[in-house]
């Protein structure tokens, strides 16, 4: 760039110098040409004045008026060198008005015939005063015509023509050249006919048409064989000629070129020196700036530890110092920022891990549930389905569906209709509107099987209180529904059986009533009339007849007892339990006393039974029924121990496993345990009727009563070793 500037400067300087040189040359040329033109012009003025003085020369006029020999002679005498010296004028002629040569003196290098004269006359035109013509080369010399009209009054009689030399003496030329300066050429020419001279001889004129556009300024042209020229033109008005001062262009521009060369040399010197100085200065400025730039770039590159050495106290030094302070501050802020970011990042990562842990845990939890869980977002798009959900549906979520389409996508039908579940009635749709919903009439028709499901749906709200999603939980109730249907079927069957049973029971009631009423009446008649027979015909009936009547009455009594026991047993089964607190101790004691009273006084030989009655826990139940149980157990104990020498009956109870176990123990005949399973059946007897009376209903009654109270009954015995009968009753908490 610097080189370009220098080049431009040099070029400009050169052009300026060249312009100056050209202007100098132009001024000089203009000055010289002007002076010469002025000189020539004043010469022409003098010449024309001289010539005009001949216009009325009497001898010449006289000859023209009449060509008498005398006049001719006078004219010839007057003619020579008229108006000039011989070295100036080559020839003089006298022409008539038509340009015909009449007289001549002297001679020129070529012919001066009439045609030539005509051309000159045509050239100079109608003359009021003398005129000078253009240069002509005739032979070795160059001439120019000077023509004066010869008139008498207003009548033109002819012309006086002088052919004057063009040229200068060597002295004049030398003087002239000195005046012009070396290298310069002076040309004088007549543009009218293109003849030019350098005052030594004819010469080629400037290679431009000066007639067409004579320019006042500096002319530049190339002269063949002489190179580039600069020229200045000055007209010589009175002669119609021009002066051209011509310089070789090189001569004019030589000082400029020399100036240019020197300038370039100087520029080179300055350039080298300047570069060196600039390098030195630049180094002094750029080194700290580069350090600053490097540090700044380092800072941009996140290296905040870089500092700039402070070595100077100028602006750069202050800049470095300020930079260092700024860098220090940035580093502090950056460090603080990085610590904060690191802390926050750690917290975020920790929170993220916890979230991920929570999510994993939640997913595992949801997957481990035996309930299907299906979640849709607030817009109804499925988001999640747990393992059970996928098992029941046979597929995962359909992410691109809407809640309305869920039933169709998962082939959910409304049970019993054969139609896809209406989209807007699905529980999840209700949940999306903020209402919990439940439905159990879903059937998923999978390719392999149909699954009945029960669905609960509920809205889920975010921390902002906005509906975030909806969750549907559902379970496979196929089995349950099947079981329910089975239970319904069984229940129906049961109801039918119960109805049958009730019918049977009603029939049994009728039957029992009949037995009770109708069977007893004839028995009563048999017994009563037998008794009447015995009483009324005592005298006529012999002993055998009396005995037979006794058998009849005894059998009748037994049958009555049997009917009574059966009725009691039957009634126990159907009687409504009237529950209340029952004092078992008092009840057992009362029954025992009644039984002893009923048995009447024991035979004299027999020992009355010893009865041990302990304290019995109270219970809750139907006192009348429980009394029946005690009656049968106690009467049995008395009955089967009465053959013992010292009958002992023990009544007691113990508590075990939340039950009260009551027992009645005797030391009577006992029984063989292999028949124990028959003990509590109706009409089942282990003893012959002639050993111990009885109908075989008593223990059946005991068992029925105990069973109706939710208890158990059992016995322990050995043949001849006595027997113990137990019955358990649930202990009422309030009574223990």
């Amino acid at each position, binding site marked *: 760039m610097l080189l370009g500037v220098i080049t431009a400067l040099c070029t400009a300087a050169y052009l300026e110098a060249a312009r100056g040189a050209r202007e100098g040359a132009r001024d000089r040329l203009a000055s010289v040409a002007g002076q010469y033109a002025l000189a020539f012009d004043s010469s022409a003025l003098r010449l024309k004045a001289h010539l005009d003085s001949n216009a009325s020369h009497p001898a010449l006029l006289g000859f023209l008026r009449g060509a008498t020999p005398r006049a001719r002679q006078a004219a010839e005498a007057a003619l020579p060198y008229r108006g000039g010296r011989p070295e100036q004028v080559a020839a003089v002629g006298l022409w008539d008005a038509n340009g015909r040569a009449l007289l001549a003196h002297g001679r020129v290098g070529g012919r001066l015939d009439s045609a030539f004269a005509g051309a000159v006359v045509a050239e100079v035109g109608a003359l009021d005063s003398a005129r000078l013509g253009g240069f002509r080369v005739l032979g070795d010399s160059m001439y120019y015509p000077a023509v004066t009209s010869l008139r008498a009054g207003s009548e033109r009689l002819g012309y006086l023509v002088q052919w004057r030399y063009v040229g200068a003496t060597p002295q004049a030329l030398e003087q002239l050249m000195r005046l012009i300066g070396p290298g310069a050429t002076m040309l004088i020419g007549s543009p009218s006919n293109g003849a030019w001279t350098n005052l030594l001889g004819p010469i080629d004129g400037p290679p431009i048409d000066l007639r067409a556009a004579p320019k006042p300024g500096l002319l530049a042209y190339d002269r063949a064989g002489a190179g580039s020229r600069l020229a200045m033109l000055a007209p010589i008005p009175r002669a119609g000629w021009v002066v051209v001062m011509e310089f070789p262009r090189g001569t004019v521009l030589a000082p400029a070129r020399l100036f240019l060369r020197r300038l370039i040399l100087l520029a080179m010197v300055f350039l080298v020196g300047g570069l060196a100085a600039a390098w030195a200065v630049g180094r002094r400025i750029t080194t700290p700036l580069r350090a600053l730039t490097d540090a700044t770039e380092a800072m941009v590159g996140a290296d905040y530890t870089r500092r700039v050495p402070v070595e100077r106290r100028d602006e750069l030094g202050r800049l470095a110092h300020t930079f260092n302070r700024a860098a220090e501050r940035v580093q502090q802020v950056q460090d603080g920022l990085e610590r904060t970011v690191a802390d926050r990042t750690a917290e975020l990562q920790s929170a993220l891990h916890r979230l991920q842990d929570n999510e994993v845990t939640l997913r595992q939890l949801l997957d481990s549930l035996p309930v299907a869980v299906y979640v849709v977002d607030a817009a109804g798009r499925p988001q999640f389905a747990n393992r059970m959900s996928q098992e029941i549906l046979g597929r995962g979520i359909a992410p691109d569906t809407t809640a309305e389409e869920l039933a169709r996508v998962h082939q959910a039908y409304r049970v019993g209709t054969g139609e896809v579940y209406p989209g807007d009635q699905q529980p999840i749709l209700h949940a999306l509107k903020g209402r919990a919903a439940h439905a159990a009439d879903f059937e998923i028709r999978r390719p392999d099987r149909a699954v009945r499901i029960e669905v609960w749906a509920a809205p889920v709200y975010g921390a902002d209180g906005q509906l975030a999603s909806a969750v549907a939980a559902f379970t496979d109730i196929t089995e349950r529904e099947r079981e329910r249907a089975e239970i319904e079927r069984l229940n129906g069957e049961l109801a039918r059986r119960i109805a049958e049973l009730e019918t049977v029971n009603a029939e049994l009631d009728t039957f029992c*009533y009949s037995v009770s009423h109708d069977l*007893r*009446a*004839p028995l009563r*008649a048999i017994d009563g*009339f*037998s008794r009447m027979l015995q009483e009324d015909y005592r005298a006529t009936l012999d002993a055998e007849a009396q005995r037979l009547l006794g058998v009849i009455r005894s059998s009748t009594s037994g049958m009555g007892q049997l*009917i009574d026991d059966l009725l009691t047993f039957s009634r126990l089964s159907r009687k409504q339990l009237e529950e209340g607190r029952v004092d078992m101790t008092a009840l057992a004691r009362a029954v025992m006393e009644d039984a002893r009273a009923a048995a009447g006084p024991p035979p004299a030989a027999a020992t009355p039974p010893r009865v041990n009655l302990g304290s019995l826990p109270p219970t809750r139940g139907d006192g009348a029924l429980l009394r029946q149980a005690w009656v049968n157990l106690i009467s049995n104990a008395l009955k089967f121990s009465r053959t013992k020498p010292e009958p002992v009956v023990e009544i007691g109870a113990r508590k075990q496993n939340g039950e009260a176990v009551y027992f009645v123990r005797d030391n009577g005949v006992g029984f063989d345990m292999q028949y124990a399973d028959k003990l509590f059946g109706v009409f089942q007897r282990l003893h012959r009727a002639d050993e111990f009376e009885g109908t075989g209903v008593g223990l059946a009654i005991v068992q029925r009563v105990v069973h109706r109270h939710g208890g158990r009954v059992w016995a322990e015995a050995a043949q001849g070793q006595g027997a113990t009968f137990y019955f358990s009753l649930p202990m009422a908490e309030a009574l223990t």
Partner: protein
Amino acid sequence: MTQSREVEILLVEDSPNDVELTMRALKHVNLANRIHAVRDGAEALDFLFARGAYAGRGETPIPKVVLLDLKLPKVDGLEVLRQIRGDPRTRVMPVVVLTSSREEPDIKKAYALGVNSYIVKPVEFESFVKAVSDAGLYWLLLNQAPE
């Protein structure tokens, strides 16, 4: 069977055997001559309210006690009892139900209708005699009927 004397016991019993047995039992305690027996509920009501066959009985005083079997032809014992208790003339008349039934509903219904006593007829003759004569004696001799 006699209508000449004042009837103190009305026996309502369809079974002739039971009638005879009852009469014999009451005879043991010398009450038999003041007994009138009818064979069904309709006849019992006719007798008590002096209508039908008994229309001419006039202002005969009501019996001192009625021994009423529950299982009767035509009008059963409970209906007879209901009508007895529904009529101001017989509302306070002692009625002893004398039947072979021990069925709870019968007993409860009888008490609900305002029966005074309930005696199950035992099969055994002696017990029967004792029960019947006790009932007759009690109501005739011990129980003061409101006048």
